[in-house]
């Protein structure tokens, strides 16, 4: 494959991931206004936070009546994985100091997955930037469409939007708890559900989710990966859009 072919393939992959990811911005926008956020607040999350998991989590805590601190902590904890993407993409990008904040803001699950899936550095760069910019534009456009739609619908329960929020979280976690090597992840998921539900009657809204995170920290620190275990599914999930993901779309 020539370099030009590799770059074209990266662009194609970036566009398909951007469209699929952008589309579920509709559900984010609709759920955010159903949770009681205004349209400008919904757009501020998509423009400034720009990290799907953190945005859904922030809105979920707000919808449940959680305090500001719990919403910030949950969104922040879900954003930790973005910090781990930096070491994966910086060797591919090698950006100037001036562009670094832009590259950082665009460092999300999808751009990292497409950028690191390419055969050479040039194609990787193309994949990262096209995906980052593409998802940014479409995610924000579809967030706005979803917010306008949600606003027009009215009572969120009547349209099952509360159930849609639960389904959105299930879809986000699904690829991380299925497939080979997900045994520990399944146990952690089960433990998190038990801790969250058991603590709900006793602590303020938003806190059960944070308590559940402790399950994972303990599990991560006390267990040793068996030598046969594949590397942690840091990226696998988050082209959350399709269970197949960009890796399998690659020509």
């Amino acid at each position, binding site marked *: 494959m020539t370099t030009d072919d590799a770059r074209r393939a990266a662009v194609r992959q970036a566009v398909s991931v951007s469209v699929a990811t952008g589309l*579920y911005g509709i*559900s984010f926008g609709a759920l955010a206004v159903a949770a*009681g*956020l205004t349209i400008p*607040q919904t757009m*501020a999350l998509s423009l*400034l936070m*720009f990290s799907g998991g953190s945005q859904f*989590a*922030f809105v979920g805590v*707000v*919808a*449940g009546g959680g*305090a*500001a601190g719990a*919403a*910030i902590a*949950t*969104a*922040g904890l879900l*954003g*930790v994985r*973005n910090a*781990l*993407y*930096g*070491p994966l993409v910086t060797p591919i990008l090698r950006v100037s100091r001036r562009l670094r904040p832009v*590259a950082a803001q665009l460092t999300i699950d999808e751009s990292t997955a497409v950028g690191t899936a390419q055969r050479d550095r040039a194609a990787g760069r193309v994949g990262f930037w096209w995906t980052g910019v593409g998802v940014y534009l479409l995610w924000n456009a579809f967030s706005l469409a979803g917010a306008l739609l949600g606003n027009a619908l009215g009572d969120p329960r*009547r*349209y*099952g939007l*509360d*159930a*849609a929020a*639960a*389904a959105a*979280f*299930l*879809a*986000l*976690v699904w690829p*991380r708890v299925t497939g080979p090597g997900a045994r*520990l*992840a399944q146990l*952690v*998921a089960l433990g*998190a*559900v038990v*801790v969250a539900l058991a603590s*709900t009657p006793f602590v303020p*809204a938003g806190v*059960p*989710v944070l308590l559940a*995170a402790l399950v*994972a*920290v303990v*599990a991560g*620190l006390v267990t040793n990966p068996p030598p046969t275990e594949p590397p942690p*599914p840091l990226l696998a999930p988050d082209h959350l859009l399709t*269970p197949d993901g960009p890796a399998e779309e690659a020509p």
Partner: protein
Amino acid sequence: MSVGLTWVAIVAASAVVFALKLVGHLLPEHWLAQPRVARTAALVTVALLSALVAVQAATTGRSLVADARLPALVVAAVALALRAPFIVVVVLAAVTAAVLRALGMP
């Protein structure tokens, strides 16, 4: 949360998430690149999302509740097992809950 406090929370949470992204770019050789850190972070993501599924589907305020959200979640799980795309899963869950509520389920 009041509208003003919500704005403060949005800006603060966005700043935290951006700072995390930037740290990864500024400290690529850092302990962040350790396998154990990556593994724990992946598990934290699983725990947070799983807890959010449970809280979102089976609680209202401080009470545990079983209502139309639970069958909707089952439908979502089936759709995911059949490899339906994200947006289809979410819409199917909403439609299930809406129909069950129209039929009188809480």
